[in-house]
């Protein structure tokens, strides 16, 4: 059970200052556009928070590009909108904190081979719900999601979209409950990313073969037997080596119910 409200609240309240700047090549105005500063929740997604920024920059680009899809990059690396913002920051700036985070806005040359298209917010919702379902399949064989009603799904999404902690957790709490006689999930939904952005997803049980709780240290030795001193970072913090996986999954998953963890 995810009952450690203090941790949940601290994670939920995490925000990042971001400075958007328009790509120099795309400016079609005599005036240099001002950079656009904004605080965004770490748990949210870029397409949900950039409406105002987009309106600001539209005035400075040529009209023929105004209908093009906008995309972002950091130091020349396109940012994938379907990852949570906080995770993207951890991935690119985890070892080298840089605040506010400087991102470049583009309206042309969409990197088709790297990014998915995102024409509206419904696509973000669809992606989010499918990830939640995947996590539920790993945790409870999909039983919880399938018993929920459409309005519960909506509440989950709207809670995230409107940054409403109580609205979101009223539903998400049910996804974090353990089912069956043995305490804990069937498997932990976890994705581990290395520095170059490559993702590893394995079936990981919250328990060792002898029935005791599995902790981070054991996970690392299981996955990276040759690198015993590797550290894991999520939500901008380094995880203590003796943290149990079950607790970690219940409290420190992103809203899509996955643990997105960076190696460092």
């Amino acid at each position, binding site marked *: 059970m995810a*009952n*450690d409200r*203090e*941790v949940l609240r*601290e*994670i939920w*309240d*995490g*925000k*990042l*200052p971001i400075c958007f700047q328009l790509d120099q090549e795309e400016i079609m105005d005599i005036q240099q556009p*001002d950079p*656009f*500063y*904004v*605080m965004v929740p770490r748990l949210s997604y870029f397409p949900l928070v950039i409406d105002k920024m987009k309106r600001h920059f539209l005035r400075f680009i040529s009209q023929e590009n105004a209908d093009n899809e906008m995309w972002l990059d950091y130091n020349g690396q396109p940012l994938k909108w379907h990852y949570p913002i906080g995770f993207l920051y951890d991935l690119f700036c985890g070892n080298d*904190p840089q*605040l*506010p985070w400087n991102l470049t806005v583009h309206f042309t040359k969409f990197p088709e081979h790297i990014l998915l298209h995102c024409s509206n917010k419904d696509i973000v919702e669809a992606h989010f719900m499918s990830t939640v379902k995947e996590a539920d399949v790993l945790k409870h064989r999909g039983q919880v999601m399938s018993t929920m009603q459409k309005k519960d799904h909506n509440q989950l999404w709207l809670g995230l979209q409107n940054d409403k902690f109580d609205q979101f957790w009223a539903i998400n709490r049910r996804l974090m409950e353990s089912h069956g006689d043995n305490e804990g999930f069937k498997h932990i939904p976890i994705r581990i990313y290395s520095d170059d952005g490559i993702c590893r997803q394995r079936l990981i049980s919250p328990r060792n073969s002898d029935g005791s709780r599995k902790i981070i240290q054991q996970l690392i030795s299981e996955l990276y037997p040759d690198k015993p001193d590797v550290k894991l970072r999520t*939500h*901008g*913090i*380094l*995880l*203590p*080596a*003796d*943290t*149990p996986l079950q*607790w970690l999954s219940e409290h*420190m998953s992103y809203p899509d119910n996955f643990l997105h963890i960076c190696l460092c």
Partner: protein
Amino acid sequence: MEGGEWRKDIINQLQSRNKRETSTFQDIIAFQSRLFDNVSTLKNENLQLTLMNERMRYSNNESVSSGGNPSFEKIQAMEQRILAQQEELTSLHRTRGENAQEIINLNARVRELEKNLQSKDILISENMALIASLRAEIQMYDTNMNELQGLNQMLRDEHQALQIAFASIEEKLRKAQDENRSLVERLIKYKAKDADKMNEENEHFLKSNNPTAFFINTFGRVSFGKKSDKVRKELEEAAREGCSRGSDGSGGSVDDKIMESMPYYATTLPTKVLSSFDAHDGEVNAVKWSPTDRLVATGGADRKVKLWDVSKMGLVESKGALVGSNAGVMSVDFDATGVYIVGASNDFASRVWTVGDQRLRVSCYTNQIFDNYI
């Protein structure tokens, strides 16, 4: 609640993260965004004010320029007027030319319309002629029809008169037939009387020939006066004996006579077909002899009653079919005079025809029959 060093560590890290990343920048970014909004609204305002300023300056300029040399002004105004007038003139010229063109066009159109009108007139007069000829035709047909109606009426009258004559002749015929029949009856009666008389005579003759009776008569008369009682008794006994014998014999002969005088009916089953013929399409439901003529009426499932003349041996001649029934005819019968024939059919109706002209006279359904009889 679970606890431990790791949890404390995590909470501390999270708190320091939030302090570092969030609370440091929260206020400054909020302030920045407010400033940002302010700047954009001020920019808009500035733009509007510039516009207004520009407009004011322009109107000012106009008012300043109006204060120049009045005579020059006037000349200029007149020149401008002349120019305008000239322009007006040219435009008027142009409109005149257009009007003339239009008049020509209209004239052409008028001519065309006149031509149209003429052709229409011709058409109308042709149609009038046609109508007149058609009227005449109608009149002719009317008179024709009247004539035919008169003719028809005449024929109908003639027909009626003929029918009346026919009926009276028929009546006469029936009377003659009745008379004939009564004559035949009388003849038969006389014949029967003759036969009775003959029988009587025969009987009488036989009685007188009977020996016993004769004996009694003769001896009865003789014995009354002369013979003694004894002899008489003996004789009487003897006579009784003889009488009983004689009466026996005579009784049997009398019975024979009675048998002979009774009408004699020979009953034989028909074994030979005299003639056969196809009367109806489908089954034949009823057959009846006419009481007067050599006619047979048959009723069949083909909804017809048919009359057949069987007077010639082996040759059956159709005398006609009586139609009008709506279902198969189940029974037919003649009236006593053989003039009418009734047919009962499966449509709950009975119909009466006359045999002579084979016409349907009466047609009544179940209810009507009841009504008529009640």
